[in-house]
């Protein structure tokens, strides 16, 4: 409390008397009383947007005030008001009669500039995208935007401006999420029905964020309807979802939101695998997952709100083979994430948010095999478990000083526990136990950021973040400057520039291909210094008639990168110690991103193009020369269109193109001594070849019907990879039999086989929403 009083005192000292009044507005849905973050507010033709709490603040210098508030899916508010003193007003916006998911003809108000490095998405934006297996997905939807891509098909994680998946800070109501993926990267663990909005930063990071190099994904969970109970259920090709929300009290002060999803692939595979039990097929594969959210939100008193959320997901994958080695593999993994936030409004100038959170990710892999020979059975088993957990306390304060100055500052404390790998192996009666090590990192951060707007055309953000981490007897200290500025060249043109330094206190040793979760997290140490990232970017945007055009160039350097040693996999030959990695590598990425958007009218669409380079260098790899990173993709194009038709129909078309990633092929080969017919490959340079280009067309057709009861239903038909492109998952050197034209066997030749994962995949889903 003392820090709050100190800040309040300082705020009064800094306060100047050159305005009429401070207007603090809170924008809510009139029915549910949920806040509407990102609403566009025009005050005498100057624009602001509501924050994550639905609030905006503006100094009123001229009366009367012409207020215009707009938000997609809601009726505009247009009014003239007069303010003689500091005032807080609640603006209740009325939803349009059409369901949220339909595209409206409303044109969004414009902020005056558009930044490529900050993206804001709403769940309705995700619903419109073509879906894989009938499931809308948050992370997949982000990949149509420039600078954000997925790895090869079937892999997990987002690659933002050339970074790696571990370099993305993913927050769910301010709590970190370590592994946001289900199997094979099909889906993320985030259910769009439960979310309020998603903010993504690719650069120009605000000082309140830190700990990761490449991006910030800040997801907020919906508060729930405070006045009415409503919900929905969805059945799709692979999963079913149930959502329920409503008031917890009759006073419209408390609400809850409950969301659950269950994947029933396990049930389907059980039916298919019945042949396995009957001995008619040698292999059995099973997979299922479930995830769920619970959020409580309440207004304790005027200006004080409390919210608490809990998220849990669990995945199970199993494989059994009766033939080769009677192998049996099972993998379990999941996240548990919880956070509680107290948001306090001290006066019309000072706002504070205090967050306590806990997050845990764990996974276990269990493999057994039995080899039989001459009536002998040799049993081998392997168990590998890994754990990552973090709990912390954050205090963030926003101080509105006056029209020109705003301050954001705060302190953060986090404790991260990492158990990278605990392995138990049993072979031929001998048991071996290896624990990589249990580590704790205590992190302390303090930050301050000044928003300075000397004129209505120029805005400057200067931030400084002090970071410290303690691991055993090693202490890391660093300063991270954050600078960004925008200048409005003309009414419809804006230029921006930004510079950031970021530190990351962990390394992820990722499985290079298969979308399995058996990655290994390692804490920074003396031998594995923390990663450091430097990023500079410059951008320009222009508002055309109905289009936004944005172009941005960036350069990013990442120090203290690590790479896996040769021959390491994550099942049979996992990394054992520090010598399993190549360390102190450097990465550099640079490129140009362009985005053309149309967000008004019955047709919405985006066209994005990225030209980029992505390099790595390690002293003892590739003779110390720079080599292309595995996910170095020169050209990246994404076209996304959504069209509103008649009779409740809406259509979506997505087309994505990526240049092939880099990979290593052997340059010569020779026979093995131990096994006849086995050949040993010789690899000289790293990633010297390119996979074929990746491109894919997705289609979606949705039909929405409003029932007489006011409820409505939605049928969705989706086609993933509509022209059945054989996109490369990996390449394999195989001995292939060759024949002449008469069918005579000529011999065997080594050829490079193109293995792909997903053919054309149709899907269907049904959603019913009741109010």
């Amino acid at each position: 409390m003392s820090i709050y009083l100190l800040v309040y005192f300082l705020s009064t000292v800094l306060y100047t008397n050159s305005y009429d009044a401070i207007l603090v507005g809170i924008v809510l849905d009139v029915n549910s009383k949920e806040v509407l973050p990102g609403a566009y507010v025009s005050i005498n033709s100057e624009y602001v947007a509501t924050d994550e709490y639905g609030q905006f603040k503006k100094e009123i210098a001229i009366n009367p005030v012409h207020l215009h508030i707009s938000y997609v899916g809601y009726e505009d508010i247009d009014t003239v008001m007069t303010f003689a003193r500091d005032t807080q007003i609640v603006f209740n916006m009325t939803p349009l009669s059409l369901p949220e998911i339909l595209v409206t003809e409303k044109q969004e108000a414009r902020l005056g500039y558009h930044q490529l490095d900050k993206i804001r998405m709403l769940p309705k934006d995700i619903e419109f995208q073509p879906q894989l297996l009938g499931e809308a997905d948050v992370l997949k939807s982000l990949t149509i935007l420039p600078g954000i891509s997925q790895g090869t098909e079937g892999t997990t994680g987002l690659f933002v401006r050339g970074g790696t998946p571990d370099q993305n800070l993913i927050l769910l109501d301010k709590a970190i999420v370590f592994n946001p993926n289900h199997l094979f990267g099909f889906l993320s663990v985030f259910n769009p029905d439960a979310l309020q909005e998603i903010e993504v930063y690719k650069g120009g990071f605000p000082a309140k964020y830190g700990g990761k190099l490449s991006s910030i994904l800040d997801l907020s969970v919906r508060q729930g309807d405070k006045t009415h109970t409503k919900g929905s259920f969805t059945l799709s090709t692979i999963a079913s979802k149930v959502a329920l929300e409503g008031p917890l009290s009759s006073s419209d002060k408390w609400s809850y939101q409950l969301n659950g999803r269950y994947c029933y692939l396990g049930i389907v595979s059980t039916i298919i695998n019945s042949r396995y039990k009957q001995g008619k097929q040698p292999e059995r594969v099973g997979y299922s997952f479930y995830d769920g959210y619970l959020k409580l939100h309440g207004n304790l008193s005027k200006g004080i709100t409390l919210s608490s959320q809990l998220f849990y997901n669990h995945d199970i994958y199993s494989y059994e083979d009766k033939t080769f080695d009677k192998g049996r593999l099972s993998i379990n993994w999941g996240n548990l994430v919880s956070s509680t936030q107290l948001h306090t409004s001290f006066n019309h100038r000072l706002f504070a948010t205090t967050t306590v959170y806990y997050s845990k990710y764990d996974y276990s892999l269990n493999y057994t095999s039995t080899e039989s020979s001459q009536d002998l059975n040799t049993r081998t088993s392997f168990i590998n478990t890994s754990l990552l957990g973090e709990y912390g306390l954050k205090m963030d304060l926003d101080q509105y000083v006056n029209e020109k100055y705003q301050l954001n500052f705060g302190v953060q404390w986090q404790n991260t526990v990492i158990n990278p790998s605990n392995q138990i192996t049993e072979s031929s009666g001998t048991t071996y136990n290896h624990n990589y090590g249990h580590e704790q990192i205590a992190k302390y951060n303090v930050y301050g950021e000044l928003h300075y707007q000397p004129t209505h055309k120029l805005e400057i953000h200067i931030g400084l973040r002090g970071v410290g981490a303690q691991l055993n007897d090693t202490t890391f200290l660093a300063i991270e400057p954050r600078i960004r500025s925008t200048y409005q060249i003309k009414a419809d043109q804006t230029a921006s520039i930004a510079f950031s330094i970021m530190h990351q206190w962990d390394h992820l040793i990722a499985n290079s291909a298969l979308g399995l979760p058996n990655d290994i997290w390692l804490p920074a140490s003396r031998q594995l210094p923390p990663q450091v990232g430097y990023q500079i970017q410059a951008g320009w945007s222009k508002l055309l008639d109905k289009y936004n055009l944005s172009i941005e160039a960036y350069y990013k350097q990442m120090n203290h990168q690590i790479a896996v040693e040769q021959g390491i996999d994550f099942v049979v030959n996992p990394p054992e110690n520090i010598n399993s990695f190549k360390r102190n590598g450097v990465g550099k990425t640079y490129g140009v991103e362009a985005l053309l958007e149309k967000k008004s009218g019955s047709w919405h669409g985006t066209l994005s193009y990225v030209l980029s380079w992505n390099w790595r260098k390690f002293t003892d790899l590739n003779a110390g020369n720079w080599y292309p990173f595995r996910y170095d993709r020169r050209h990246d194009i994404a076209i996304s269109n959504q069209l509103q038709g008649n009779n409740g129909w809406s259509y979506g078309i997505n087309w994505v193109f990526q240049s092939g990633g880099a990979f290593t092929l052997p340059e010569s080969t020779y026979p093995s001594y131990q096994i006849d017919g086995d050949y040993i490959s010789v690899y000289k340079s790293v990633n010297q070849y390119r996979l074929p280009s990746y491109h894919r067309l997705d289609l979606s057709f949705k039909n929405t019907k409003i029932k007489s009861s006011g409820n409505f239903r939605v049928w969705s038909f989706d086609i993933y990879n509509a022209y059945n492109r054989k996109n490369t998952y990996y390449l394999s050197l195989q001995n292939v039999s060759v024949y002449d034209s008469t069918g005579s066997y000529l011999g065997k030749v080594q050829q490079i086989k193109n293995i792909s994962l997903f053919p054309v995949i149709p899907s269907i889903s049904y959603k019913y929403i009741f109010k």
Partner: protein
Amino acid sequence: MSKWPIASVLILIIAGNFRCGKNYLTYDLPYEGDRIVIYSFFDPEHVFKAELFKTKPAVSDTTKDIHINNALVIVTNASGLLDTLLGDGSGIYTGHITPEIAVNYRITASVPGYPEATSAWSHIPEYSLDQIEFDQFEKIEEIQMHLTYVGNIRISNFDTSSLYYYGFEPENTYDIFLVPDQAIFKKCGVIEHDLLGQAFSGDCLEDTDDSFTIDVLNNVEPTWPSFKLNFYILSPELFQYMKTWKRHFTNDIIIYAEPSNVYTNIENGYGIFAGRNMISKIF
């Protein structure tokens, strides 16, 4: 009814029958040219012997025999030429001299049109397996071994199960691999591990008692009349070769493993020239 669901079904039918994209790809892989591959393992019980192959481009015919039959293969020691190995026409070259323990040797192979391949120096390691005690047992159910080390010894169980496929009449055999220290292991604890074996740093075992158990209950037929333990003493280069070959063999069936090269101590060529020794104990 809208025409769009009908259109989507048509798209599926067409796409399902015409998949675009190639099944096999062609890359113009640079090839450094033919190189000599030497496989030569020497021990104090046998004369020098080597098997020679040549390399070939990565993507090519694998059915052709690529033994080298016209090579000049010599073994040298510190004093100079020691032995000339003679070929039998099938790529195998046999010498006349039996190597000694702890003496450095190297092999050189010359073939017209190939760069000359020469190995690094290698020797049969000396070992100081001072004492091995075995518990008395009546049935072959469990063997406890107590080992006292003088000098640096590492113990590696390596790929023992493959021997059972071929069998040994009428005995059963269990292999243990020891790698005398050549400063290649820098820390205590386990330094090599895979599903079928383990190795320990000898620095931690020096002058200490240690014991480990081989549970042969699942691996031995109780009616067998005897059981044999083979202790292989490996030179460090042989250990590195076996370790990296094992990874290569395992990664062949694991699609997500990082590409790996097999260790070689042959300059201008590939393969391995390394010494080893073996002692056996029969129960």
